[in-house]
């Protein structure tokens, strides 16, 4: 990701130019000559932990918790588009914070009718939230489940092909993709955690969604053949990620669950291979048109040296107030046992407990 650094001035200039001649969602289109469409989202939070630093949230609390993204789309023709999205993200004292705004996406998209093709640095669909994991107005909590949606794997440098087919009352949405992944995680050192980024060139995968005849209910599956860099030997080996999702979203309630299983070579405490099983369930109810309550339970199990143990167990409860679909205020509390796999392991007590709260405001357009 570091190779796509751009200056703040560049991002502001692009944004300003876009604002001068664009339409956003819900704004009236000014005419057929409008070719540039601007969208964006922003979240600002205050977050505080009562014990360990979790997701960059320190015990003393932080206001340095925000994300901003601006997306510009140029409609070359009815079937051709260029898309660029810049993002700037800060998560408290996390070493994974962006040093500067990043170009997160940049791709060309062509609609062949039957198939849509995107080439470049393209958002890749994995599960329900891979590319909306930080869009606060869409999410029941500040972010999508942090054990499932790990940093990296949000885009692929390559190609993404998508197709949707009606099968009677059912609808199948399928995507295949191939290219390079960037993976981000935090490695412990004697002087504290450091950000580690690895990149592998040859990965491919698919995401399938089957929409059922019951409106709002769909099931999905993910399959990825990926290369991983061994944290100890730095050898690159090929592995398979498998996952499944279920989503039941209605007008006044939702329930969702997802599961992933993948290998992390050299990821065990003694440098041995590790199998990670990440899952979560979440549900919410709208009490009124504006108010909703939501709950989420992420659980991760790791298997190495022939034994399985629970590494992450988070229980979250939150309240969301959304005066309209473009603005949301949230207050959420989490009780975490263990740690998230991409953060430094808890030594000496891997089952350490931490309560953390996040109060946030989000807007999108």
């Amino acid at each position, binding site marked *: 990701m570091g190779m796509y650094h751009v200056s703040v001035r560049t991002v502001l200039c692009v944004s300003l130019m876009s604002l001068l001649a664009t339409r956003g969602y819900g*704004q009236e289109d000014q005419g057929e000559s409008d070719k540039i469409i601007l969208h964006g989202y922003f979240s600002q939070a205050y977050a505080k932990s009562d014990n360990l630093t979790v997701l960059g949230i320190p015990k003393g609390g932080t206001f340095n918790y925000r994300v901003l993204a601006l997306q510009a789309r140029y409609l070359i023709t009815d079937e051709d588009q260029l*898309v660029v999205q810049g993002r700037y993200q800060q998560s408290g004292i996390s070493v994974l914070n962006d040093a500067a705004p990043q170009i997160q*996406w940049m791709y060309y998209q062509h609609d062949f009718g039957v198939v849509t093709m995107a080439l470049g640095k393209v958002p890749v669909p994995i599960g329900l939230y891979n590319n909306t994991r930080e869009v606060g107005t869409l999410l029941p909590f500040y972010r999508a489940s942090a054990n499932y949606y790990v940093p990296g794997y949000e885009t692929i440098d390559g190609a993404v092909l998508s197709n949707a087919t009606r099968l009677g009352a059912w609808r199948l949405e399928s995507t295949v993709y191939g290219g390079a992944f960037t993976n981000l995680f935090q490695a412990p050192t004697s002087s504290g955690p450091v950000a580690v980024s690895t990149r592998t060139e040859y990965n491919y995968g698919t995401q399938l969604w089957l929409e059922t005849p019951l409106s*709002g*209910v769909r099931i999905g599956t993910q399959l990825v053949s990926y290369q991983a860099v061994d944290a100890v030997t730095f050898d690159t080996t090929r592995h398979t990620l498998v996952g499944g999702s279920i989503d039941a979203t*209605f*007008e006044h309630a939702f329930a969702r669950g997802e599961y992933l299983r993948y290998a992390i070579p050299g990821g065990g405490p003694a440098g041995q291979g590790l199998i990670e099983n990440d899952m979560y369930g979440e549900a919410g*109810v709208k009490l009124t048109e504006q108010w909703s309550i939501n709950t989420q339970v992420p659980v991760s199990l790791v298997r190495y040296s022939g034994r399985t143990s629970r590494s992450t167990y988070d229980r979250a409860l939150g309240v969301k107030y959304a005066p309209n679909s473009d603005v949301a205020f949230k207050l959420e509390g989490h009780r975490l046992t263990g740690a998230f796999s991409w953060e430094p392991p808890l030594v000496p007590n891997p089952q350490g407990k931490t309560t953390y709260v996040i109060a946030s405001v989000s807007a999108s357009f």
Partner: protein
Amino acid sequence: MRATWAVLAIMGLSATGLPASADAQEYVVVVNAENPITTLTKKDVAAIFLKQTTHWNDDNPVVPVDQAKGAKLRDVFMRAVVGKSAASMDAYWQTQIFSGKNVPPITRSKDADVLAVVRTNVNAIGYVDAKAPLPQGVKVVAVK
């Protein structure tokens, strides 16, 4: 667990769409008079306004024209045809936008402006209040 799913399903179903007959008089779907289409199913129209159908049968691109955000007719139309409230449609489009898949249809805030686009663009399709006067060059499509 089974009971929970059943409750959720009922809550969802109870909140989706008005019965078709209740809103049948409130809007009409319109296309350019040169468009050979005379009849569409609700599923066809829904797929067009969700941008799941992107081309007419003759391979020309479909240009859906939506009413502006906040318009009462938009909520009525979306509930009746797509089975989602305007708020759910907003969430749908946010998901489409920020997952990089697509952007919403162009919008117009007045019936006359929707009709103007449909009149001048042979590939356009829109919906307007059933009482709105239709100009020449625009025709109503029966939705079954």
